[in-house]
């Protein structure tokens, strides 16, 4: 069961231990870890334009319909690998309920418990407190290894950068914007990109409406603002909450209300309902998963959707 990370100390400890265990597990390429492999996968997906050269900026997992199912697949793979690393088959990814933090005052949002020393730690370049603080003299310190730059993907060695409320975005999505997004009845719409309207996917991703997912990346700042954003372990907690919101929407609107269908044009490759979800070439865990594989039984994965149900009747 996926739980609010701030409501369950065991879930919180398991998550921190789990990501550190993955960070200590070498990938097939021993220059980086299995955790870093997920950073690499996300960055490469970001660079995979669908179709190549499209002017809408749509890639295999962003600015298009596959945004939600691709990230669900990514979280499931990550969750399973942490469970294995911890030797806890029942491990479930927790989520950061930024909807609740978004109801706080502006100052309190930056000082919310999620940024405490016993949770994700605070800001810094590099982060200097909490479980992901950087100390070059400590062999077990949290080290960023993958960085996406204009000239490509690089192997680096540095601490994590995080600049909460310092990148021009001082507030998380407010409850009103979450409520308005939840009331969208259409999963997505032509032209299936960041201009789509009406589109639940596009509002939740944050290109339309009031920012939502994109706003949270900007609020955290630092590495979370780049294509290598999974370098910050808050990434997975953030996306788990995005997935929870989709799960609630599916519960209301039907699990398989995804669009576009397979009859859509070929330039929507990787975004049609039966298209394969992008993964790295040579991925040893590739399962041949397609978008529709991500529809089943979403709401049962979460400890609570009641806060979202309350919001969805307010507007």
């Amino acid at each position, binding site marked *: 069961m996926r739980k609010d990370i701030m409501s369950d100390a065991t879930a919180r400890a398991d998550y921190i231990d789990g990501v550190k265990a993955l960070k200590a597990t070498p990938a097939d390429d021993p*220059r980086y870890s299995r955790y870093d492999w997920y950073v*690499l996968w996300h960055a*490469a997906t*970001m*660079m*995979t*334009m669908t179709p*190549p*050269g*499209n*002017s*809408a*900026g749509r*890639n295999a997992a*962003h*600015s298009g319909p596959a945004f939600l199912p691709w990230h669900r697949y990514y979280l499931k793979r990550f969750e399973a690998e942490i469970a294995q690393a911890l030797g806890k088959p029942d491990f479930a990814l927790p989520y950061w309920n930024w909807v609740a933090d978004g109801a706080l005052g502006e100052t309190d949002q930056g000082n919310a418990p999620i940024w405490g020393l016993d949770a994700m730690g605070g800001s810094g370049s590099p982060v200097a407190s909490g479980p992901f603080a950087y100390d070059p003299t400590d062999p077990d310190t949290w080290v960023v290894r*993958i*960085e*996406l*730059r*204009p*000239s*490509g*993907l*690089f*192997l*680096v*060695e540095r601490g994590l950068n995080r600049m909460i409320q310092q990148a021009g975005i001082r507030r998380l999505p407010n409850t009103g914007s979450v409520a308005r997004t939840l009331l969208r009845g259409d999963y997505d719409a032509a*032209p299936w*990109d*960041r*201009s789509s309207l009406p589109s639940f996917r596009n509002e939740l991703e*944050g*290109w339309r409406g009031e920012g939502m*997912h*994109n706003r949270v*990346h*900007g609020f955290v700042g630092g590495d979370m*603002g*780049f*294509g290598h*954003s999974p370098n910050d372990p808050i990434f997975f907690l953030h996306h788990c909450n995005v997935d929870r919101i989709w799960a609630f929407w599916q519960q209301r609107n039907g699990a398989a209300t995804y669009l576009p269908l397979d009859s859509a044009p070929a330039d929507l490759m990787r975004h049609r309902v039966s298209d394969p979800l992008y993964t*790295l*070439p*040579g991925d040893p865990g590739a399962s041949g998963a397609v978008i529709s594989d991500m529809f089943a039984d979403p709401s049962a994965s979460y400890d609570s959707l009641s806060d979202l149900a309350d919001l969805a009747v307010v507007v």
Partner: protein
Amino acid sequence: MTDDTHLGLPVGDHDMSHGTQVTSVRSFDHGGKAVEIAATYEVKVNGVARQLHFSVGQDGKVTSHLRPYVAYDSLVDMVKDIIDHYPDDFGPAPQGGHGDHHGHGG
């Protein structure tokens, strides 16, 4: 940063092999007329054409997977932001450089 290792890219259908020129075609109907606005962009930094992985949307806003959660009002804003975040990726300024040319919208 100079000691960092270029990993290459383990993907097959990425856009890194494309050139430095980006073509944008924006189409819409207005007053019963079909309108098409085509533009080709090339960004040079210190005189060197760079691939900054951007696209210009139908609304004229610019996005880049280098700053993937932001839509910029202009290409100028995007280029400045990317240079600010990756100063070492563009090399040192040339002797007698080009200066700062303002006012060219995206």
